[in-house]
């Protein structure tokens, strides 16, 4: 039993006491700052866009059924709810791509700073304002894109 524990192996009874947070670990973005919120939004927008992508492929495949079938499909997006859904697509895709660009740099070691000698109160170097600015810019641009989309779809502007 002790040997199994040392190897990191757990029996079913121990597994129940494993205390892993599981999905609720990443579903709760609070308490850890902007980077955690950004991580949470990136995942949620990614899942949303995946669902949209499947729907989009289904929608465009209606072209094979002729112009009538395509027009019938388009009517779904020409309702108020359809427009709101498209505005959400605009916002999520903008946020996901802008924040994704930030993460491409960050996750290759760019813009996270250089190691040094930590001093009290030990603010983390990697959670710097370059990162926070990237997150805020992604959020602001997503809101601006949604506002533009709203203007085009609802007022015809």
């Amino acid at each position, binding site marked *: 039993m002790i040997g199994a*524990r*040392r*190897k*990191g192996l*757990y029996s079913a*009874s*121990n597994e*129940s*006491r*494993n*205390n*892993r*947070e*599981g*999905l*609720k*670990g*990443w579903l709760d973005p609070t*308490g*850890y*700052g902007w*980077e*955690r919120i*950004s*991580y*949470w939004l*990136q*995942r949620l927008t990614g899942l949303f866009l995946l669902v949209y992508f499947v729907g989009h492929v289904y929608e465009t495949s209606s072209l094979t059924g002729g112009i009538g079938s395509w027009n019938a499909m388009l009517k779904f997006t020409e309702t108020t709810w359809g427009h709101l859904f498209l505005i959400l697509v605009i916002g999520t895709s903008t946020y996901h791509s802008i924040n994704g660009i930030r*993460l491409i740099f*960050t*996750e*290759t*070691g*760019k813009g*996270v*700073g250089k*190691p*040094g*000698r*930590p*001093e*009290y*109160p*030990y*603010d*983390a*170097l*990697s*959670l710097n304002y370059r*990162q926070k600015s990237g997150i805020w810019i992604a959020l602001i641009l997503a809101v601006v894109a949604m506002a533009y989309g709203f203007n085009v779809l609802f007022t015809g502007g």
Partner: protein
Amino acid sequence: MIRRIHMLGTNGKRAKSKSGPGMNSVTMRIYRSTEEGNKGRFDSFDIPIQRWTTVLDALLYIKAYKDSSIGIRYSCRMASCGSCGMKINGKPRLACYTNVLELDSSEISCEPMSNFPVLRDLVTDFSQFLNHHRNMKPYIINPEIDLRDNPQLSEFLQNPTDADKFLQFSYCIKCGLCYSACPTVATDTKFPGPQALAQAYRYSADTRDAGSRYGLTSIDSRHGLWRCHFSGSCSKVCPKGVDPALGIQLLRGNIMSITKRHKKIAELKQHTRNPQTD
């Protein structure tokens, strides 16, 4: 200095003064495990506090005067040993390093750290965590030197600039707070976690080390380094400024050869032992 830290609290912010009748006490809600398994309960205790009372002080007060059966683990009381990690008001913190007033709450909950199996009450099992650490070969690998049975004294010549590249990561006290805060560890049991990966970088960046860890299965695999998505929670909770997220991103850059991974191995200098002084 110690007095100043007490007054400032652990985040460098001045602790909020609570005055008036009834304000110099808090209710501690402490997780108690039961023999049945995962369904624990919370026991509440009202205790008096001072301006300098830490959560560990509060727990030890309860053990001394209210309920001696509470299971806690602690040792140094000064954020050096990393034993007293627990979830305090929902966030992983060191009990000895958390001032009660800093929490700005009349009710303080103490739970065992998430992502660690619970042994009893607030005490968690570190086996899995330390296994991940061990898998990273956390020691200097250099075939140039064999310290065993070496008749000569040996030292690597390393300048302060080279030392600064890894020193930050060597301050890790293995308290497990980063492992508890990480959302990837929460869902992937094979993910080594921020602590182990930061240690992999620590040795990779050390000019005394000549052993490459980039090809280790625990690093360069589906459940390894690539599962980190930079939520930064590990660095947020680290009580020693280790910044594991920084180490992980730099290690990732090194593996992809995007950041500079070449290092000049430190020169080895050997001295003959002096039997008079050795």
